[in-house]
Structure formats: C-alpha cells, structure tokens
C-alpha cells in the first residue's frame, strides 16, 4: 500500500516509539541558470541574476559569473546552493591570486585553473559543495577554453564548446545542442542524410543565442529571470553587460 493512501493516520511501523530525529539539512537550492559558450577566440559566460528560496525571490541582482582576477581571462560561473557556489568562487579567486605571487607574477593558465577546480570540488567529495561550475578562459594561444563540472568535480580535460547548468539546464541544453552543435540539422536537399558541419559561431550570434536561451527559460521556469549578466572574454579583455529579463 502506498504511503499516501492513508492521509490521516501514520502507517503502523511509523509510530512515535523511538525519539524522532530532527535533522539539520545543510543544503538548499537557490535557483538560477548559467551558460558558457566557447567561440574560436572568444568566450561567452552568462547567468541570470535571480536568487530564490522556494517560492520567494531573495534578490533580483545577485550575479553568478565571477571574474577570478583583474588581469587574467579566467571566469567562473557557479549555480546551485548559493553559499557553496560563492565559497567555490572565493576559493578559486584566492588560488589564482596566490598562484600569481608564487610564480613570478605569471598568471595561472586556464588548464591549471581547471585542474585546480577539480581538486577543490573532489576534495569535498564526502561533504560536497552543492554547486555546478562552468570555468572558462583563453589559453596561451588565445583560443577559448571552457570546462564544466558536476558538484564533485567530474570534468573533461578536452573542454567543451558549450555548457549549461542550473535550474533551467534541462530547457537550455537541447536548445544549445541544436543551435551550437547543430544537432538534428541536415544539409538542405540531401534528404536528411548529410549532417550540417559544426563550425564556430561569431560573437554577435552567440550573444543572441544566449539572450534567447534566457528569455525562453524565464518564460518556462519560475526560478529564472529578473536580469541577465553576460560576460564576454576575448583578446580585448573582459566585458560585462547587463540585460533585463522578465520579473514575474
């Protein structure tokens, strides 16, 4: 018999014979979503600025994309449990800063930062930091690199072309599959036999995709909205833009 079948009486086995433990739950979900898309020589990182607790909106202006230092191209976006997310960002910021002073003012490479972030996350394997991370930056050749992580640190060293995480990732990922990796797109006139070749997208096209992804996610997900923080990293450095999203 289902537990829900008898609404008024607790099942016999659940009688209050033993003292009831009221456990403290150290996690919560603060909603929101993030996206990272790598172009050939530029990188877009974006996140909405809504911060939620259940059905409450705590703030409409909490940013999820963090610049790890003023003079490198490293950018980290985190989403999930807000306190853990910010703690990871702060840990990474301090690590990038320390590295610089211990290595004759040389900045941490994006590959090194990626491996370090894995260490941070996996180091908390038995009390995980409940946050999904997307790390990006330009490598020594000026090529964009993008890495995405689960809460315990799993990531791909090859990096990825696009990544999405957070509350609306299930809405955003299939859109990005189709629009960035051209999944299910075929060359016209080939009767669905020749797949469309994947190519790097220009920066203005990527920005459009990101804005579309977030306006759509805002329509369908209650934890996404209010504002869009859109960060561009290129040879011209770091650029941050803020756009409005629906506040309902």
């Amino acid at each position: 018999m289902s537990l829900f079948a008898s609404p008024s009486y607790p099942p016999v086995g659940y009688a209050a014979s033993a003292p009831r433990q009221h456990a403290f739950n150290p996690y919560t979900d603060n909603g929101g979503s993030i996206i990272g898309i790598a172009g050939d020589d530029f990188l877009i990182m974006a996140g909405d600025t809504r911060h939620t607790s259940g059905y409450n909106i705590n703030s409409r202006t909490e940013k999820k994309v963090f610049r790890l230092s003023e003079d490198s191209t490293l950018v980290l976006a985190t989403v999930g449990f807000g306190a853990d997310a910010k703690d990871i960002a702060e840990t990474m910021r301090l690590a990038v800063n320390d590295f610089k002073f211990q290595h004759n003012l040389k900045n941490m490479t994006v590959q090194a930062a990626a491996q370090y972030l894995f260490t941070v996350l996996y180091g908390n394997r038995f009390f995980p930091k409940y946050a999904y991370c997307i790390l990006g930056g330009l490598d020594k050749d000026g090529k964009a690199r993008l890495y995405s992580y689960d809460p315990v640190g799993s990531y791909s060293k090859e990096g990825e072309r696009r990544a999405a995480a957070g509350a609306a990732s299930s809405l955003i990922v299939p859109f990005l599959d189709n629009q960035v990796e051209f999944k299910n797109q075929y060359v016209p006139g080939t009767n669905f036999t020749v797949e469309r070749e994947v190519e790097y997208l220009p920066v203005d096209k990527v920005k459009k995709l990101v804005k579309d992804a977030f306006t759509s996610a805002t329509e369908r997900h209650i934890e996404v909205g209010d504002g869009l923080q859109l960060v561009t990293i290129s040879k011209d450095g770091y650029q941050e833009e803020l756009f409005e999203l629906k506040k309902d």
Partner: protein
Amino acid sequence: MNHLPEAWGRPRDDVYGAYDHSHLRPSMPNQHTQEPIVTGTSVVALKYNGGVVIAADNLASYGSLARFSNMERLKQVGTHTVVGASGDISDMQYLFDTALEDLVIKEEYQNDGHHLRAKHVYSYLSRVMYHRRNKFDPLWNVLLVAGWDDGKPFLASTDLLGTTFSAPALASGFGASLAVPLLRRVCPDEESVAKISRERAIEAVEECMKVLFYRDARSTNKYTMAIVSGEDNKVDIEWKKDVELQKQSWKFAEEIRGYGAQIV
C-alpha cells in the same frame, strides 16, 4: 547479478537479510542545535536616499508562548552598522554579546582611526554562519545587516546555511512573504533608492510592522527601529526604542467570522 546500480556494493539481501537501518542511528543524543527554541520573528529593512531603516519587534517566543516581551533584536556594531536577528534567541545572544562584541573590541583597540564598515561586519557574519553550517552546528538565525558603506547605504542578508544576498528591501521570516511585497512597491530596484526619502522609508517600514502584527501570530505590537543615515563618511544612527504600533485598524476583522464581533 543485480543490474540495479543502487544495489551494487551492498550486502545481498538474499544472503544477509534486509539491511538493519537502526545501526545508522547514533546512540548518543546530538548536542548540536537541531531546532530553534526561543525565537524572534521577522526583521524588516529598507534602503532610502542616504541610509537604511531597519526594524524588529521586541518579542521572544517559546513555541507559541509569548515568553519575553522586552527582547531587543537589533544591535549596533561599531559606528556604521546595525544587525537585526530573527530565529533562535540564544544563538542571537552569542553573536551579539560574544562574537560581535569581541570583533568590535579587537578592531577598535587599534585606535587607528579605522572603523569596521557594514560590508566588513557582513562579511564576518556570513563567514561565521557558513563555517558553523559546515560544522553541522548552525547558528539558527536569519541576519539582516544594515549600514553605511563607502558613501552608500548597505543592506544584505545571511542565514543559518551561510546563504548571502543583498537587495534594497529585505525581510526575514514571515516578513519575506508579507513585508517584502509591500516594500518592493515603494522600492522595486536599486535605482529607485535615490527617490525615497527618510520619512517615506520609515513610513513604509512602520506599515510593514503593522501588517506583520495583524497577520503573524508570533509577533507583538512593540518594536525597535534603527535608522542608519550617512553623508560621505559621517554616519549617524538614530534609535527608536519600545515603539508602539500606531493607528491600528482592525476593521477587516469585522467581516471575518470567528475573528470579529459576531456572536455566532
């Protein structure tokens, strides 16, 4: 071979019998805070052009019993900041009377002309809260930090999990549902802070305290309000203590059966 991943690496039920979950239960009582005992309800705060208004009522409840009716839940920290606490009162007293007191003594002892600003106090508090949740021994509070920071009003929140966020209008507990919508009507975003006068902000917060008293069964009609105002680097904190709610209207109760003057 069981193909279900959740069964892998576990003793087989058909060999060892069903797993006895009672072995996982600790034999000693847990000494960490498992639930708040004596509690304070909402704290309400709003930024305005030149400062922040923050208020909390003076009640400390023991479950549904109105236990202490003179419990102030706002504390001035240093020269620039007022902290408001809801949730467990003993945890609040640890923070206010021990942690923050020690912090201020340590910082002011230098006598070097530097004072902790609201952002610094907030940073300290949020790290303490997060640290304690990491130890599975949380301080069961929601804290609002109001103050003057670097020529601007400052308002932010932290809770028992170490979650942090900031907004021009904030309220904890019941107030998050009842007061924040009223405050956002006055101040929807950071840009509109500049258009709100001190009087308007006080009026809005007073209105919130009234609505909370109408609807929150763990609230009282006596509250404390602090107004932190600044000009460049000069800060002034005005205290209004033991304020009684003014101009209450219980007219709405007339229409509610079992609440107003009806006999049946």
